[in-house]
Structure formats: C-alpha cells, structure tokens
C-alpha cells in the first residue's frame, strides 16, 4: 500500500460518507447493544469470580487439613488397620522438620458444647487451637478485642474467641468482650469477636458459629491430647507439595507406617481447590465471553447487511470510478473504513453505556443483602475490555470486508451502459 493509495482511499471515503442516517443509527445501535451485552456478561463474570474467590479464601489460603485415619498396608511386621493418632507433641516435631511451612497447628474439637451466660445456654462447636490459627484462618478480631496469643497458650488461660453469630446468640445486644461465660461449666473470659466474613468453604463448622480456645487449655479441660486435625499452612501455594511430602515422611517414621500408604491421612489440600476454582471460573468467563461475542456478531451481521445494501445502491457509482481508473483497493478501502466506523462508533457507545451501568450498580449497597454478598458486583476489567475490542475489531473488519469484496467484483462494462 502506497501513500497514494491511502490518500485516494481517504479522499473517496470523505466524499462518499453521506451516511444513511436512519440505517446507520440502527446499525450502530445494534453494535452498541452487542457491546453492552458482552461487557456486562464479562463484568458480571469478573465480579462473581472476585467475590467467589474472596469467599472461598475466607477460610484461609494454602491450607492442608489432615484428618487421621488407619493404615492400609503391612509395614515392617506391623499389621494393616492400625489407627494413627497424632498428638499435641507432634506439632513441635513437625514445626522443627518442615521449613516450608509458615504455620503448623493442631485442632481439638467438640461439636456440641454448652455455653452459658446468665440464664441462657447455647450449644455450639468449640475448637482448641494453637494461636497461629488466628491469622492463617482469618479469624480477625473486631475492634476492641483480640485473638489468642502465645501467652494464652503457655499459661493455659481460660479465654475464648467467639464467632460473631455465636456471640450474638449468647449475648444478644450486649457487648461480649470482657464478659465471663461458662463453657461446660468452667468460667472463660471472652477476649474477642470475629469480624464478619462471607465464607463458602469450611471443615467442622462455619467460623462464625464456633468458639476457639487455646489448645493447652482444651487439653487441661478435657484431659485429652489427641488431635482432631493437623493443619499445614504455607506462605506460597507452590511450597505446599514439598511440605506435604515432608510431613508424611516425618509422621511415617514416628508412627511406623508405609510412607506410600495413602489411607493414613485424609487430606484436604486447598491449593488444589484454588486451582480447580480458577479453572472453573476461566471456563465460566469464556462461556460468558462466547455468549457476548455471539450477540456482538449479530450486530456485525447488521453492519455487513447495511454495507451490502450500500454496495448495491452504489453499483453504478463504483462502475464509474472503475472506468475512470480506480484500482480495486481504492474501491474496497472506503467500504472497509465505513464498516469499521460503524463498528467503532457502536463499540464506543456500548462501552459508555456499560460503564454507566456498572458504575450505577456499584452504588447499590451490598451490605446485608445476601444475594449481592454472594454474587459480588459486576466489575469491568482490562482483560475483558481487551477481549471486547478484539472481537469488535475482527467482526468490524469482516463486516466491511465481504461487502467490499462484492464491490470490487463489480464489472464496470455491464453497469455503465444501462440506466
């Protein structure tokens, strides 16, 4: 393409751009509609994804929860079917042996414990945990309170951290922090209430409904030191695999089982879950994107349609230009430009509408509205904008290309002679 070609095409385009206003407007509107559809679908998908992963992460990230089980293989003269039961001491052992882990803790649990305050008794789950549990499991305290700390654990203090719903069940409108309540008839001081969070995954019970006390206190109170679960937490998800392998070896040598025996532990590795969710959401976004793209393509078919009509209308004009020496590119160029102009204007209008809608939706308060807390808010992201531009650009080019090709195929000899 030479500068002469470009100059001629631009000149012809500027002279022929006598738009058919009504048709052009309708076409641009259909492109705009398609753009709004694709952008809103992608924005909805993005909002859903962000909210879902936030909810999913509400339990904590990069956790491997180990439930103890039984051996299934004979090992060094020991029979199969032996229960493996980790104890509180194992936590220190594992912490010393697994440098990959950010935190390792044990949990002991009772699913139904009586919490008595004044004349009211509520039954709920209680967990005895190491203090590292708090940050890793996102048990952030509300202002005015705190989570368990190392001294609580060392001194076996009778302190309790409450889930916010459980706190409300027990105390109603009263401020719980600092109050004393009875747990299984032993007095405990409430040191903190968990901040609100929307949580979609859990083991045991929902965090908002349980109470947490130091693991040492739990042992003293219940007279047991068998762990319900053992949890590994890594700072980076890619360290989890090594940490798991190492933990298995440490425990296998201590308790004497075949390290290849996969039945000893029931393991929930949330890193895998996170990867699967990411794939599911990618798939969902692609699905939304395809639906949006199809809608947009319908708009582009409209552009192609109007362009075909224009070519037909201007057949004679095209023939005249050819007779006067216009090359094919000079005929097709203005049509391509016109198709792209419609697409561009439609895309621009659609993007503007989508931005307005998303902005307005953002103004609706989601606090307390269950559906919105769960679904999140439509969010426009750069990748979805890029995808929309790519679809629009391609479709716009094609919508101009095919009619332009028809224009170039016009035979001047036959169009010029007859009225």
């Amino acid at each position, binding site marked *: 393409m030479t500068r002469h070609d470009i100059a001629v095409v631009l000149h012809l385009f500027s002279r022929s751009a006598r738009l058919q206003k009504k048709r052009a407007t309708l076409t641009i509107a259909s492109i705009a509609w398609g753009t709004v559809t694709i952008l809103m679908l992608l924005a909805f998908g993005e909002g859903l994804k962000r909210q879902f992963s936030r909810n999913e992460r509400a339990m904590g990230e990069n956790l491997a929860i180990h439930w103890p089980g039984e051996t299934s293989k004979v090992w060094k003269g020991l029979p199969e079917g032996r229960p493996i039961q980790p104890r509180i001491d194992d936590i220190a052992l594992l912490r010393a042996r697994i440098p990959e882990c950010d935190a390792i803790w044990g949990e002991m649990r009772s699913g139904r414990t009586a919490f008595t305050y004044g004349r009211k008794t509520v039954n709920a789950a209680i967990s005895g945990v190491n203090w590292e549990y708090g940050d890793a499991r996102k048990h952030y305290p509300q202002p005015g309170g705190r989570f368990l700390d190392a001294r609580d654990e060392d001194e076996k203090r009778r302190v309790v951290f409450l889930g916010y719903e459980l706190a409300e069940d027990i105390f109603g409108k009263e401020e719980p922090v600092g109050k004393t309540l009875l747990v299984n008839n032993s007095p405990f001081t409430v040191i903190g209430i968990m901040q609100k969070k929307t949580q979609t995954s859990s083991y045991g019970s929902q965090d908002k409904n349980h109470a947490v006390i130091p693991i040492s206190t739990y042992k003293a109170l219940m007279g047991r030191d068998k762990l319900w679960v053992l949890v590994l937490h890594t700072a980076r998800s890619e360290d989890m695999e090594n940490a798991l392998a190492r933990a298995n070896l440490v425990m296998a040598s201590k308790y004497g089982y075949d390290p290849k025996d996969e039945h000893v532990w029931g393991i929930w590795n949330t890193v895998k879950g996170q990867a699967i969710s990411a794939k599911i959401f990618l798939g969902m976004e692609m699905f939304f994107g395809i639906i949006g793209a199809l809608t947009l393509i319908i708009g582009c078919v409209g552009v192609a349609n109007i362009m075909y009509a224009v070519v037909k209308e201007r057949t004679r*004009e095209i023939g005249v230009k050819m007779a*006067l020496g216009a090359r094919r590119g000079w005929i097709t160029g203005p049509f391509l430009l016109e198709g792209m102009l419609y697409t561009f204007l439609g895309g621009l209008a659609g993007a503007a509408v989508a931005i307005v809608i998303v902005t307005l939706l953002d103004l609706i308060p989601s606090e307390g509205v269950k559906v919105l807390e769960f679904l999140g808010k439509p969010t426009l992201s750069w990748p979805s904008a890029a995808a929309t531009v790519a679809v629009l650009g391609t479709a716009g080019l094609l919508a101009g290309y095919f009619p332009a090709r028809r224009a170039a195929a016009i035979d001047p000899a036959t169009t010029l*002679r007859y009225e």
Partner: protein
Amino acid sequence: MSRVINSGGNVTSEIIHMTGIRKVYDTGKVKVEALKGIDLLVAPGEFVAIVGPSGSGKSTLMNLVGCLDTPSDGRYSLAGEDVSKLGRDELADVRNRRVGFVFQGFNLLPQISAFENVEMPLLFGGVPVRERRDRVAEVLGRVGLSDRMEHKPTELSGGQMQRVAIARALAMRPDVLLADEPTGNLDSTSGGDIMQLFTQLWEQGRTVVVITHDMSLARRASRIVEIHDGRIVSDTVAAA
C-alpha cells in the same frame, strides 16, 4: 508514443491497433461469440464513428477499446502498449491515463460537485492537488462551464451534464476520447451542441471514437466503421 509496424510494413503510430479480436461470452450453457475477428486501426487525430444495429457487437467493441474488458483472442495495443493480457488494476491504470469515457447516461456522481467529478480521474492518476485545481478549471472552461464548477449534477441540464462528463474525459489528457451514444439522452438542441463540441475537439487534434446509431452524429466523423454480427462490414473515409 511508441511506434508500431502495421501489416503493410509502413511505420505508423496508431492509437488503436486491433488484430483478430474475438470476444466470446460464456454464459455456462450457451457460448455467444459477440466479436468474430475484428481488425481495426485508428491513427492519431482521426474522428471515427462506429455504427451498427443493436446486437451487432458495437458495445462489446467499445468495452474492449476502452479497456473495460479483455478480448478472448487477438491482439490489442493502445497507443503502443499491449493491453490484451493485462490484469484488472493495470487495466484501471491504462483507462485512467489513455482513455476518456463519455457515456450516454453521463454517469456523473450525483452527490459531488461538477468540480469534484472532473477531479476524480486526476485523483486516481496521482496528480498533485494544486495541479488538479488548475486542470479542472482549464477543462471546465474548455467546455464552457467555468461558472458551474460548484454545482451538483442534479442542478445542471442534460447538455451541461454531458459537457461536465466530457470535461472529466479530457482531464487526464487521454490518447483517445471514447464516447458511447453521447447524444442519446439529449434533446436535439443540446445534442447538436455536444456534436459541435466533439467536432471542435477533433479539429484541435484529439482522437475521437464515437459509438452511435445517430447518423447525423456519425456523418460528422472523418471515418465511419459499420459493424454487423460481430464483423466490420464497411469502413468508409468521409470525403472531407
């Protein structure tokens, strides 16, 4: 203009040199042979009228002479350039440089002014903007429409439209002015004016080929070629 050697061996400089031109239209089922071997030589400065009844093949001949179409067989050189085997874009360039078309239906673009209509072939020919302006003014002056430059074709009379078309045909200073029934859509007065204009252009040294069945126009030509059923049946040089 290059020189070609005609069949007689004399050195001449023909504008149109057609030998053994055949044109077959293949409609799929039937093959129609529109031209069955045309030999036509037109020298510079000639005024040739091609006449014949409808269906005789004169439109086909006009398309070939004007490089709107290529022959099925035979050789055609236009101003010394062999054009019988050129591709579409090359033919477009040849039309732009060498042929000035005047059509029965004027074929002006209705939405742009007379000036812009005349400017169009200059735009295609890559003539710079300033020179375009001068050339358009010059040719519109030549056809007597200096005061109508900014008018749209719809604001002009039939005779004026045809004169704009002639100005457009002259703009690129073509080797041949090719007119197809140029008076066919005009009343007798305007038609007469246009005929007069063609005669003047010829007298100023331009080569003019007119396809017509209007004998009053044909009689003004220096030579009348008659076509019938795809062949030239007579070729008369008028006694000037």
